[in-house]
Structures are given as C-alpha cells and as structure tokens.
C-alpha cells in the first residue's frame, strides 16, 4: 500500500464530496474539511519527502512499468526537490485556508472545493514525471485560478483580471501542447526520462530547439517573465487575498520549477554543446525581468499590484539563477523560493487585513490610518526587510548561493542585478510600511491616478463588522514570517537542499532511477559556506532599501533640488514603461507573440 498517489487523489475526492453536499453542509464543516485535508496532505508529503531523500521514488500508475525500455504508463518521479516543492505548495494552501477561516463568505462550499483542487493540481505538477501529465495539471491549475481570480464578481476589476489571466495562460498552454507534439514526433515518448534518453545521443537540431523554445515560452508565461508578464499584475491586484497568497507564493514559481525540471531531464543532453549560449539567453530574459519588475514595483500605489511586481522581479532573479545552469545556483533558487514564498504570502495576508479593515488597498488612502494595527505594521516592516535579504535569513542564504554561483559562472555583474532588485522591492514594501502603518512623511503621490478606483472595494459583500480583525488573520502571517526567518537557520537545511539540487542536476542518474529503478549512484555534492562578500551584498541591499524608502517618504525637499535635466528622462522612462501595462488583452497577446518569436528566433540562431 504505497501512499504516493494519495496526496494528489485525496484533495480531489474531498473537493468532489464538498460539492456534492454543498447545498446542505454548514460553513464550519466546509472550513474544517478543507483545512483537515490540507494538513493530511502536508503530512503525507512530509513522509514522501523523507522517503525520497533516502532514495528517489518512481511510482508507475496502474502498474504499467516500462517494458523493454518503452514507458507505457504515467510515472510519479519523486526526488527531494520535487517532493519539497509539493510540500511547500501544500503548506501554503493550508495556511491560506486557515487564514480565510471566517473572513471569507465561502459561496457555500465552492471556494473550499476550488482551493482543494488547486492544491491537488500543484502537488501533481511537482511530482509527475510525464510531460503530458505536466500540461494537464498546468491547465487544471489554470482553470481553478481563473475561477478564483474572478471571485468577487460584483466588482469590475476581478472580471477583467480573470479574462486577461485566462487568455494569456491558455495561449501559453497551447504553445506547450505544440512543443510536446514535436518532442513526441521525434522521440515517440511522453515520459521525461525516456525523452531525455532518446535525445541524449543526438545533436540538437531545429526541431528540438523550437520544441524547447515553445515549451519554455509557455512556462515563462506562467512564471510572468518579460515580455509575457502583463497578466500577473492584473490578476494579483483583484484576486481575493487567500488566492493571492497562492499565486505569488508558489504558483508562479512552478513555471520556473518546470523549466528547471525539463532542462535537466530532457534538454541537457542535446544542448550540452551550446550550454553557454542558452545561459546567455535565459539570463538576458531574467535580468530584464528583474530590473523591469523592480522599477515598476517602486512606482505603484495599489499595494497588491506593488507586491505583484515585486514577485515579477523575484521571478527574474530565479530565472537568472536557473539560467546559470549550475547545481549551486539551483540550490540557491530552491532556498530563495522557500524564503520568498513565505514572506510574500505573509505580506499578502497583511494586505488582506488592511482591505478587511479599511475597504481599500490604496497607499494614499491608507496613509497613517494603519497606526491602530501596530502588530500588523511591525510584521509588514519585517516582511520588507526579509525581501531586502537582511543577513542570516533564509532569503540571504539563497542569495549567497546565487551570488557564489554567479561568480563561478563568469557572470560577475549578476549579483549587482540581485542587489538592485532587492533594494527596490524591499524599499517599496518598507515605504508602504512607513507610510501606511507609521504615518511618516507625506502620502506617496506617485502611481497612476486611474489605479485608485480598483484599489477601493466598491461593494461590501460580507457586511460583517469591520472594526475588529479576526485574530487568525494576524497569527497566520506571523507564523509564516517566523518560518521564513528560521528555515535558513536550521543546521541541516541548506546543505541538504544543496545535495538535493546536485541530485536534481544529474541527468544520467535521473534516467537511471526512473527507467530502470534501483538506487542511483549520485556524485558527492560539495556544499559551500557563506563568504564575506555575501554579507557585503546583503548589507548593501538592505541599506539601499532603507535609503530608498526614506527618500520616498521624507525626501520631498531633496527631490526638488535634483537637477530637472536628470529627473525628467527618468520620469518619462518610468511613465513610458507604465503605459505598456494597458490592461488590453490584445496588447498582451501581441507582446506574447513577440516574446515567443524572440525566444524562438534567438534560440534558433544561437543554439544550432
């Protein structure tokens, strides 16, 4: 009796049951069932993680084992990184369900069923070893996410956000379908290990490169990388808070996880000769995203949109990490994803507290009104500092691994990009903390005037008493932030992740334990330690963030003395950048086509 498939099947069955009885089951039952199933899934995934650290698990659905090296059934190929990511998804979903315990008008059971299906989709996405299964779960995640984004149908914003989100991600999914069709035509296989084994001997020709480009642009659309990122800010600004926690916390990161998984299992063999050029392409996309997201993040006044652009900026950093194509960078990204997910989830939950208490999420409206929520303000400031990667925190360990790998990988300027984007994103969050919760300085006049309308909740659905914040809405973010701080300090954690990353990175061993089973022979993993320059970068980022926040809050006289000649092109550039986010779905798909053509064209030119 192997429990491997249960973490995926149990939430689905619970969701089906919840919908079957939704007209008769009281609200408390829904909450209890959903949270209970969440905790059960986290426990099961914990067991799977422990087992996979001991030896990776290849679980063939329906008992269809590969016969004479042809895979017939679908496999769950569970290695520590996959199981860890799945456990992280389950933890975030459970915390979101506990957070929305009473805060949420549950639309009699629909919300809880969709959240459980969302968890099952993400868990399946992380564990599966079959490339078509990956797309099925990609679509399942998408379908649930579109419905959850449009949850507050009485307002205009959620409808537009859900439409833009649905169309952009669907086009991305169709590109992945085409890519899988090409790979199937060439290798006749759908299991990632078998595709990789079939492609290993050959040099990458145009078909393999275009298949890679199409699959990557599909997953980059999910991971909101330039120029296919426009949907994310719209979807995050309007989705209900527990859903935002999941979008930013983990759903967007799964795009980056899928790219890493596909590169090291499928494309590492044929593209080994051109790893250098592929590295340049991925890091180019990643750097552009990191800087674009950081600048846009600082220019927002709608706090959820601000956090959304901060997520985009971090996605750029993660893509740079994956783009370095080294085990250390992969470990750094894994640690960074855990730290960032927990911090961003907590920050969105605190936004939920503001929205619940004041009915608006606009920075200028809320200026100084957050003083009565002292504890939430302190948490918000801690979140801002965590984003700026203060030393000795999980995020810091992740960044130090990334910086080390960047220097190894002959990209010395990359740590500077990380410092800049952490500075801007952390600074923006600290500015909000200072302005809203402490009332310092003058209300932030930046941001587009049109943004004020969607920030205000036009329609008060719940109508419950708004003068007292339910305690759960403060406890859960506090727990998440504490976890974000402590995980890095656990002695065995970071070296363990580095070992897991080196196993993930090993292509031949993966093909071995998936197709032939048995214990893989992994190369010993060298674990690094934190060097001096890591502290330097972290200190620089933190001080920069505090300086930026201070400049935004108190620096009005200083800004006036700055030479107009320097300021005008800067403001014009940011204005032009902001003009591109037009909210028009035609623009988004035109940009998507441009992104697909750019990635496809550059891969074809550089990689053949």
């Amino acid at each position, binding site marked *: *009796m*192997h429990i*491997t*498939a249960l973490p995926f*099947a149990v939430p*689905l*069955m619970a*969701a*089906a049951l919840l*919908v*079957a*009885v939704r007209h008769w089951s009281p609200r408390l039952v829904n909450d209890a069932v959903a949270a209970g199933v969440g905790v059960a899934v986290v426990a099961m995934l914990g067991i799977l993680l422990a087992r996979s650290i001991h030896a990776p698990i290849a*679980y063939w*659905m*329906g*008992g269809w084992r590969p016969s004479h090296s*042809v895979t*017939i059934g*679908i496999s769950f190929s569970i290695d520590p990184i996959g199981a860890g990511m799945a456990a992280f998804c389950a933890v975030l979903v459970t915390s979101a369900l506990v957070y929305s315990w009473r805060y949420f008008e549950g*639309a009699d059971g*629909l919300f809880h*069923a*969709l959240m459980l*299906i969302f968890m*099952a989709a993400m868990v399946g996405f992380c564990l599966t070893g079959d490339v*078509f*299964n990956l797309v*099925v779960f990609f*679509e*399942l995640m998408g*379908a*649930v996410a*579109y*419905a959850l984004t*449009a*949850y507050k*149908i009485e307002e205009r914003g959620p409808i537009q956000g859900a439409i833009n989100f649905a169309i952009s991600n669907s086009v991305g999914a169709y590109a992945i379908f*085409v890519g899988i069709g*090409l790979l*199937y*035509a*060439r290798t*006749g*296989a759908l299991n990632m290990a078998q595709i990789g084994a079939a492609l290993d001997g050959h040099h990458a020709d*145009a*078909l393999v490169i*275009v298949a890679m*480009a199409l699959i990557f642009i599909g997953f980059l659309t999910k991971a909101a990388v330039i120029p296919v990122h426009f949907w994310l800010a719209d979807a995050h600004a309007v989705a209900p808070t527990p859903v935002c926690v999941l979008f930013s916390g983990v759903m967007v990161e799964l795009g980056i996880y899928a790219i890493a998984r596909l590169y090291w299992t499928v494309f590492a063999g044929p593209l080994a000769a051109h790893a250098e050029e592929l590295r340049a392409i991925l890091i180019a996309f990643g750097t552009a995203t990191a800087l674009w997201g950081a600048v846009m993040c600082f220019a927002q006044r709608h706090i959820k949109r601000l956090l959304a652009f901060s997520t985009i900026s971090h996605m750029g950093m993660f893509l740079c990490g994956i783009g370095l194509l080294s085990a250390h960078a992969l470990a750094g990204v894994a640690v960074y994803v855990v730290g960032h997910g927990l911090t961003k989830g907590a920050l969105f939950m605190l936004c939920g507290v503001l929205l619940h208490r004041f009915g608006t999420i606009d920075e200028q409206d809320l200026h100084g009104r957050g003083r009565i929520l002292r504890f939430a303000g302190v948490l918000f400031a801690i979140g801002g500092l965590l984003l700026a990667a203060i030393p000795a925190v999980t995020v810091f360990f992740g960044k130090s691994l990334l910086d080390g790998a960047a220097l190894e990988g002959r990209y010395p300027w990359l740590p500077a990009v990380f410092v800049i984007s952490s500075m801007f994103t952390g600074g923006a969050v600290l500015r909000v903390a200072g302005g809203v919760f402490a009332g310092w300085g003058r209300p932030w006049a930046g941001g587009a005037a049109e943004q004020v309308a969607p920030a205000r909740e036009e329609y008060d659905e719940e109508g419950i008493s708004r003068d007292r914040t339910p305690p759960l809405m403060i406890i859960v973010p506090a727990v998440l932030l504490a976890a974000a701080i402590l995980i890095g300090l656990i002695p065995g954690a970071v070296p363990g992740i580095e070992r897991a990353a080196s196993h993930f990175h090993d292509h031949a061993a993966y093909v071995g334990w998936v197709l032939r089973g048995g214990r893989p022979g992994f190369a010993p993993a060298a674990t690094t330690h934190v060097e001096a320059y890591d502290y330097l970068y972290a200190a620089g980022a933190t001080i920069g963030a505090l300086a930026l926040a201070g400049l935004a809050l108190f620096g009005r006289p200083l800004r006036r003395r700055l030479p107009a000649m320097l300021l005008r092109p800067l403001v014009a550039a940011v204005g032009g950048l902001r003009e591109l986010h037009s909210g*028009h779905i*035609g*623009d988004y798909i*035109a*940009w998507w*086509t*441009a992104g697909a*053509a*750019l990635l*496809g*064209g550059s891969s*074809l030119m550089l990689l053949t």
Partner: protein
Amino acid sequence: MNRTGRLIMFGISAVALAAVLVKGFAGLPHFGDYTGVYGTVINGIGVTERHATDLVTALNFDLRAFDTLGEEFILFASILGVVLILRELREEREHPHQEEAEEHSFAGASAAWRALALGLIPAMIVLGGYIVLHGALTPGGGFQGGVILAAGPLAVFLAGRYLRMKVVAPQPLVEAGESIGALGYALIGLGGLIFAGVFFKNFLPLGTPGHLLSAGQMPLASIAVGLEVSGAFLVGWTEFLDQAMVIKEQG
C-alpha cells in the same frame, strides 16, 4: 498602445513566429511515415492484456488513466467556476416571467416542432447510453456519450418549455450527480490502490474481448465519466439558460 501600433507589432512578430514554427516543423518526419514506438507497443498489447478493442479508450481509461483523472477534474473545476461566476447576487432576482419563460415561442415554434423535439429525447438518451456503455469496444466513450446524454434534457428546452426542463433536470440534483461521477472515477483509482496495490491498476475480471462486460474497469470508468460529463454540461447549460432566460437585473 493604440490599435495600429498593436497590429504592427503583432504583424512583425507573427511573421517571425511563423518562420520559427515552420523551421521547427521541417524537422518532423514526413506526414504518414510514423516512426513512433509507443503507438505500436500499445497496439500490440492493447487487446491481449486488457481485452479492450477500442485502444483509444483503453489508453484513456486504463493505461494513462491518471491523465483522464486530471482531465475530468479540469471539467469539474471549470463548471464549478462557471457556477461561481454566474451566481446571483443580492441585487439580482430570479423572477421567471411566468408567461414568457413557460411558452416562449421561437420563430416558427409550432406544435410540429415541439413534437419533433420531444420525439428526439428518447433517441438521444439511448444513443448516449450506448456510446457510454460501449466505450471499450467501439469508438466513443464516457465523454462523448456524456455530452449526448446531456443533450436529452436540453431538447426539452428546444421544445419551448424551459421551466419544465428545470423540473426534468433540477440544479442541485444534477450538480450532485456530476460530483458523484467525478468522485466515482477517483474511487476507481483508489479501488486499484486498495485491491490491486497500485493506483488505477485494474482490479476487475477482464472478461472476453468484444463482449459488453469486458476490459475490467473500463466500463465502470466510462459510466462514471459519462455521469460526470452529462452532469457538468447540464449544469453549465442551465447556468447560461438562467442568465439568458430568467435573471433580470434589478437596477
């Protein structure tokens, strides 16, 4: 960007994307000489190991049954999304104008039309049931049969009596049927885990190929999927029918 700027940018990148696609597709083997190995292996073992003659359904419900579980819950979650998005708010009231909804007349909805529509219903139910049950033998399966089964009650609407359709297919019952279908399919997988040790492993007797009760769990899976798909489409259509026929904006 204004419209022309958008079209110009799209024009350029569309040409480039088309070129990339064509260059990639050029590497494909010529149309028709299929070199794949997966398909030939499946064609070889499909009938012998599972006594199923329609290999597409064999793949769908047994060899790659896990994909179908994901696919079923995509349908289930989307219809939940449609119900969530089209749910009524406090300011909207469902007040069926008794005379309008009851006997709304299409252009030329005569008695003959109504008789034909009512005559169609039993034919559709039988055809849908046949396709669901014979999934493992002839082309078709749970999904195709389910949609035809859902078209049965829809014909009541075509016959001009929308409210009577809601009696034939009441919303909570249909929704419960849909979720029981989805649950049933997942339970088949669980049954495989409990009785045969591995998720979605066949645990029912295979019977002889070509007979109705053959191919182990496939007929059962077909029925569960048929129930879920017909329920899902009925719920989806009823939601859209409610919006178009019955709900009026209060304001």
